[in-house]
Every structure is written in C-alpha cells, then in structure tokens.
C-alpha cells in the first residue's frame, strides 16, 4: 500500500450515501456499519441483500440509499450478486453497455444468512472467484425475527430459542461458528473483520480491498441494542469492549495470510463486556456462574496465545 488515505477521523469521507429515516432500531450497529462502509466504498454501488434486519431499511416506496439495492431471498444473495456482476460484465464486453454504467456489487446480510442458510451460496460465489464484496453485519442471532439463535450466537448467550433454564444454565451451549476461517479456507484475495468502534481500521480495510479483483469479504460486529439488551447509547462502547476484551479480534487475510490489524496491549476481562448485556445476564444473576464465564475467558485467552506466541 503506497498511500494511506485514512489517518485520522478527519479523513472520514463526508459524502453520505445512506440518508436518515430508516425503520431500523435506534442505535443499530448494523446501520452504523453500513453507513461507514458505504463512505469507504464510494458511490456506484448495488447492494444485494438477503432477509435480515437491514432488509427493512428499504421497504416500498422508501429507500435510504442513494445507491441501488436488490433484495433477493434469504439463501442466495451471493448468487444474486453473481447474476448482476456477470450481466454487467457480459453486456459491457458485448458493447451493449457503456463501461461508465458499471457498479461495485456488494452483498449485505446478517449472520443467519451468512453462516446458516446462505453458506452454500457464499461458498459457491467465493469458489468461482466472483468479483464482489460481502459485508456480514453480525449481531449474533436472527434479530429480525425476534433474536433466535443462529450458528453465529456465542456460547453462553441467551436468545429467544436458547433461553437459560435450570437445565441449560449457559443459555446457548453451542460455539460461535468461525465464519472468518470458513471464508478464509477458500483463499479469497481479501477477508477481514471490522468493528464500528474502530473506524479508521474499517476504512483502511475497505480501501485496501478495493485493489483486489475477486471476493472481498467483511465480517462486522454489529451491536444490537434490541437483541443484546443494552442501552441504545452503548452500541459503539460495546463494540469497543468486544475488541478490547479480545472477543472480537480485528484482523485481515490476504490470499489466506492472516495479519492482526490491532492487538490490544492489555486485554480487558471478558466479564466487562458480558455483564452489560441482558443476553448474558443469567451468567451474573441470581448467582454468578463462574465456570461459564471462565470458559469464555479461556477460549479468548487460547485464541490470543496463538496470535501472540
């Protein structure tokens, strides 16, 4: 990378591509990610969407986007991107379309579409080397349908289908699926995790990805005040805590080679992050469940021990 375009917050592009007035919840992290992501992408974008919370941002006859939008179906947004990308390419090649009409094709889905029902279509699109962006706004559950567990829900979290009970004191007993590694195993040109709290890190990653042809995949932590049970005002703070506790590592992989773009110098205890969210409340009340909290901490520590050696 020769020039670093984004050094301070003053460098955040001022142009807005996403105007106010969406019906998404106040304080929605997914919306915040999309707004900043779009600034870094620039204009001439078509968003390709699978069912999820952000689907509701464009409901007839309103759309907050100044760019194009195509809602597809829950399992196959990447295939929708394939059709658009291929059609633009072949029409330009055949001289039926002026190259100035070209667009960046960007899939945006929640974690349910990305990790569960749409994983097959995603794998197909990455394998075919499709030249597209994928932004997964990960709020760690099916937020749009009332916060049921997805395979992206972390162990220990309570959701509408993994309520903590005396038989299941942890709430969700399954681990969070490692979508970053699944994507990376296809060796696409670019994969990254991002957080709405670390804006410069996000913008630089998008900037860097723009130079690659092929799949460019982003996994964004997306605090969800409604589903996580947190104050709307705490969204960015929660994202920051996820990074500082090491729960949400910021990293990228270029053709499969992983680099951590931010290593917290002294990781905060995971408890700081867990205790401020209602979805983890059962780990603290009525009695503190030390063993599950310790297990979560252990997994984070193990992850970082491999990074730091």
């Amino acid at each position, binding site marked *: 990378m020769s020039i670093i375009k984004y050094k301070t*917050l003053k460098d955040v592009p001022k142009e807005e591509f996403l105007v*106010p*007035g*969406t*019906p998404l919840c106040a304080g929605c*992290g997914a919306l*915040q990610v999309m707004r900043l992501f779009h600034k870094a992408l620039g204009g001439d974008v078509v968003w390709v969407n699978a069912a999820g919370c952000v689907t509701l941002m464009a409901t007839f006859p309103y759309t907050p986007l100044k760019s194009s939008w195509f809602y597809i179906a829950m399992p196959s947004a990447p295939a929708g991107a394939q059709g658009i990308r291929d059609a633009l390419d072949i029409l330009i090649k055949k001289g039926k379309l002026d190259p100035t009409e070209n667009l960046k094709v960007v899939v945006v889905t929640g974690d349910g579409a990305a990790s569960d029902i749409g994983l097959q279509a995603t794998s197909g699109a990455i394998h075919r080397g499709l030249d597209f962006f994928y932004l997964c706004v990960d709020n760690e559950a099916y937020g749009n349908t009332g916060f049921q567990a997805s395979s992206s829900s972390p162990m220990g979290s309570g959701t509408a289908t993994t309520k903590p009970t005396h038989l299941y004191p942890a709430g969700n007993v399954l681990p969070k699926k490692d979508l970053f590694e699944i994507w990376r195993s296809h060796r696409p040109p670019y994969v990254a995790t991002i957080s709405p709290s670390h804006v410069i890190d996000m913008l630089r990653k998008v900037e860097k990805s723009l130079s690659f042809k092929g799949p460019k995949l982003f996994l964004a932590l997306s605090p969800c005040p409604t589903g996580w049970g947190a104050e*709307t005002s705490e*969204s960015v703070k929660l994202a920051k805590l996820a990074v500082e506790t090491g729960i949400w590592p910021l990293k990228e992989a270029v053709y499969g080679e992983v680099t951590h773009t931010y290593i917290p110098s002294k990781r905060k205890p995971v408890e700081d992050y867990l205790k401020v969210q209602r979805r983890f409340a059962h780990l603290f009340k009525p009695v503190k469940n030390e063993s599950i909290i310790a297990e979560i901490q252990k997994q984070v520590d193990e992850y970082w021990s491999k990074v730091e050696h």
Partner: protein
Amino acid sequence: MERGHIFNPSYVLVTTPSLLFDMTVKPLEGMAEDSVLFVNSPKEVSIEQLKKIRVIYGDLTGLALKYVGKDILSAAMGAVACKLSGLISLQSTLGAVEEELAELGLETDIIEKNVQLAKECYLSTESVGLRGLNHKPLHKVVEVRYLGEKGIPDLLSVGNTALRKTGSWRVFKPIVDKNLCTACSICYIYCPEACISLDERGYPVINYDHCKGCLVCTTECPRNAIRVERETAWS
C-alpha cells in the same frame, strides 16, 4: 366483530402524536363522533381534525419513565386499552401483563415495575365502552387498471426515507453545547443514522427531524458536550 384491519374503531390509541397524520398508518380513518382517540402525550395537541372527535390525553411515557425507568410503553398502552373498553377487569389486565413479560424472560423486578405501571395507567384512565357497529359505508370497490411497466414494484426515487420523520421516536433529545464542543467530529462519525452533519467550521448540527434519540453521540462525545433533555417538541 372486526378482525385484522379495524375499519370502524370504537377507540384508537396512538403512541406518539407524530403518527396522527402518517400517510400509511392513517390512525384516524374510520373514526366517528362517538369514537374516542387516546393520545400518549403530556399536553394537548391542537390540530383542526381533532376538534371533531373526543380525545383523551395521558403521559404514558412520563409514567413509564417513573415506574420502569425506560420509555417502554407496551404494558401501559395495553392497560389503557383494557380500561377504555370497559370490558376487562384490572385483575385480568395485570395478569396478562405479567404473563406476557414472563414469556419474554424478563426478571421479576422488571415485571413487577411494569405491573405497577399498568395499574396506574388503568386506574387513571376512564372507561368509554364499545360503540355499535352500525356505520355508514366508507368504501367503494373499484377496478384496478393494468399499468404495464409502471406497475412493477421497482423504486426509482432513491434516498427518500428522509420523508419519514423518525424524530418522532425520540424520547430524549441530544443537544450540543457549542461552548464545550471542540468540533472533533466524533459524534458525526458514530451517529448510526447520519443525523449529524458538520457546519462549515466543523461543528455538529443535529437533524431533529430524524434523530431517533439513541444517544450514541452523547456517550461517545469525549468533551461531554452533548446534553440530554426529555423530548417535548412532538407533543
């Protein structure tokens, strides 16, 4: 009995005055002189159309803040609806509130607070009863024309959600104190809604038509330059 869309309401409850004239919601449609409108608002709304129907006001948001500490209105609105109907006892109402919230997995002290809220709302509302269903026909059946390529659900008017004034969602209002603000632009960057713009000197300007009052800006401001007030402009 009506099911689904209520065409001839005995009473209508509106959570926020800004919804009264929403083009798609149309809460006043089908109301007659003998139906009653309940508006959640600390003060009266002076709008011409409201003069013709009976309007009751109640500050449910204020009560919710008092009892629960949050502007969560479902228990309060439910209790008011029960009382207005004159058909549902206080006991049944509170039982239903308790059951619904327990199903959501809320903690007992939060449920108890909501029950107290519902009780106060129930007791402070008068009962109006249901009006009869004999009404003048409102509707005419028409033929739908074929519009060809104009009848396709594509949206060509992009970036138009600004027409929806989500400012009405706001319970608390963020206000920038220019004396404390250093124009660092952090609030501008973190506002999820793109509701903050920067003036020519780099100071934040909040778009109150759309600001949902999430208060991310207040939390993130390093100078504590964004104070918070209870919203009243929509009342």
